[in-house]
């Protein structure tokens, strides 16, 4: 087990290497010149070139990549081209709210989604199933910025219950987490349902019934655990996406998360920040996948890691 984890983590390193190269290539492929964007509209060519030189952007690409990798190896993510703030500090400030929001979103989505999925599976093709599935699927069918805008109109403006945005209090997390979690809830509910429906057709369920277990015991005690295996994968994947932040939801709710940092950095072509953030996303994503795999093993005893 330990060996497996170590092996997997070591396996991440070459992958990150490839990713770092791809990211570097990607952001330099996207048109745009940070020097010009920093310099503002008044600047002339001379000034832009001076800024370029100061930022080493006038050096050949391969050299920029080598410098970047060299810094990376020394644990230095560089500093923002625009604000001169160290990238680690910039990301550090954003990652905590983003992480909290992701956790909250996935938590409620998981609980409600699994519950709806169970109810739907038990009452398959009957009205509770239909209602449950329509509710769940509604969550994945709404443009989430629309959901966010409408929620603000209702809960902040009309009812005055929740702040329109910001995270000064924990209440600031509620609406963004609903907007973010709705789609995930839907996905989890659907996966739980189909997975549970499938499991309930398994022979061992019949065995359970033949032993006189009640329906609830069968569902919760016997079927649920194996049904959750694919659900965990989906949830893990979605959590990985969540960590990347949502540009749209963060914009609607003025939420200081990774998504807005990313879009702002992209708009400013703030290469060090974009690079670091994308590297972090990839790393988080791979890490979440690893955790999902381990969780998989916990849920499914057939899997052994060696």
């Amino acid at each position, binding site marked *: 087990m330990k060996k497996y984890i170590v092996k997997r983590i070591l396996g991440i390193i070459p992958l990150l290497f490839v990713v770092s190269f791809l990211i570097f290539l990607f952001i330099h492929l996207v048109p745009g010149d940070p020097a010009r964007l920093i310099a503002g509209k008044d600047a002339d060519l001379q000034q832009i070139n001076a800024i370029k030189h100061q930022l080493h952007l006038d050096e050949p690409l391969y050299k920029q990549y080598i410098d970047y990798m060299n810094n990376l190896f020394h644990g230095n993510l560089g500093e923002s081209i625009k604000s001169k703030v160290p990238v680690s500090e910039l990301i550090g400030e954003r990652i905590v709210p983003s992480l909290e929001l992701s956790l909250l979103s996935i938590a409620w989505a998981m609980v409600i989604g699994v519950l709806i999925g169970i109810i739907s599976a038990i009452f398959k093709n009957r009205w509770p199933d239909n209602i449950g599935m329509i509710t769940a699927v509604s969550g994945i069918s709404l443009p989430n910025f629309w959901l966010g805008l409408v929620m603000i109109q209702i809960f902040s403006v009309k009812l005055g219950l929740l702040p329109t945005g910001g995270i000064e209090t924990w209440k600031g997390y509620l609406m963004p987490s609903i907007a973010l979690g709705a789609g995930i809830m839907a996905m989890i509910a659907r996966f739980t349902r189909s997975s549970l429906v499938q499991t309930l057709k398994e022979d061992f369920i019949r065995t359970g019934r033949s*032993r006189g277990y009640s329906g609830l015991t069968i569902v919760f005690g016997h079927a649920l655990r194996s049904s959750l295996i694919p659900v965990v994968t989906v949830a893990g994947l979605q959590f990985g996406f969540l960590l990347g932040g949502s540009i749209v939801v963060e914009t609607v709710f003025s939420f200081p998360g990774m998504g807005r940092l990313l879009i702002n950095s992209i708009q400013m072509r703030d290469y060090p920040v974009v690079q670091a953030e994308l590297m972090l996303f990839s790393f988080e994503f791979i890490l979440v996948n690893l955790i999902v795999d381990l969780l998989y093993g916990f849920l499914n005893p057939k899997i052994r890691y060696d």
Partner: protein
Amino acid sequence: MHNLLNVNNLQIAFRKRKKSIKVVNGVDFGISKGEIVGIVGESGCGKSVTSLSIMRLFHDTSGEVVGGTIQFKEKDLLELSEREMRRIRGKEIAMIFQEPMTSLNPVMKIGKQLIQGIMLHLGLNREEAKQQAVEMLKLVGIPRAESIMNEYPHQLSGGMRQRVMIAIAMSCEPELLIADEPTTALDVTIQAQILQLMKKIQRERGTAILLITHDLGVVAESCDRVVVMYAGRVVEEATVEELFESPLHPYTQGLIESVPKIGNRKEELYSIPGHVPNPEAMPNGCKFASRCPYVMDICREREPQLVSNNNGRKQRCWLHQSIKEEERKTIG
């Protein structure tokens, strides 16, 4: 009348696109305490459905008992509430299934699967239930009973798993054990061991066993009495000896003919020509008529009744009964 289970005129239908299709139509048989009764027939003859109906395990399928009674001891199982039925399942009637690979919960340890039912039905505490579970595993001949308690099904071989299934089924000491093709999925040598085990349990515990199988060899080896089913009907019932010595129904004869015999070096094994009729389009008359070598005109017109002679032997064939007999029976 048998003193444990009596199935009378059982009729089971499945719903398919708003049509109701009878797959079991008039099944009668019974089991006495401590007896091993086999139900044989080709797949699709309704034998498994019959066994499931005794347990009322049609959950999640469109199957439904549409007629007849299932008398277990004093109760008609079809009349019980679901809650009352749950008290019977596993405790008084237990069941083992064909597929030992999939009939155990893959994500639950063996011990837990045993203990759960014991605690539920016998009202023991966890420790006592554990004791009982280990004892059961020993009963079914599992060598390292204690350590297997902590293993998952996938770590065991097929034979071992079927033993575990039997242990689970026997764990609450039921009076009737229904075994639906318990050996079909196993190697021949393992098959024999499992059948031995079931006979041993019947001997030692006095459990009655209803053995559902398509394999006459299995029947010959373990049963006291045999019910032969064809197309949702009982066509013949006899003791094992009688059946093999003098099968009355042409279908039974065909079945026995098709069992490979040691020393028989025939090029090809005998098989009954033709197909089982489609339950959606059942012919009138005897359902076996289209495949019967002795078919008569009457066979195609009217279906014979299941007729019993004095010593309890029954058959459903115009060769062995006349219309008069039938009329007499109807009158009487």
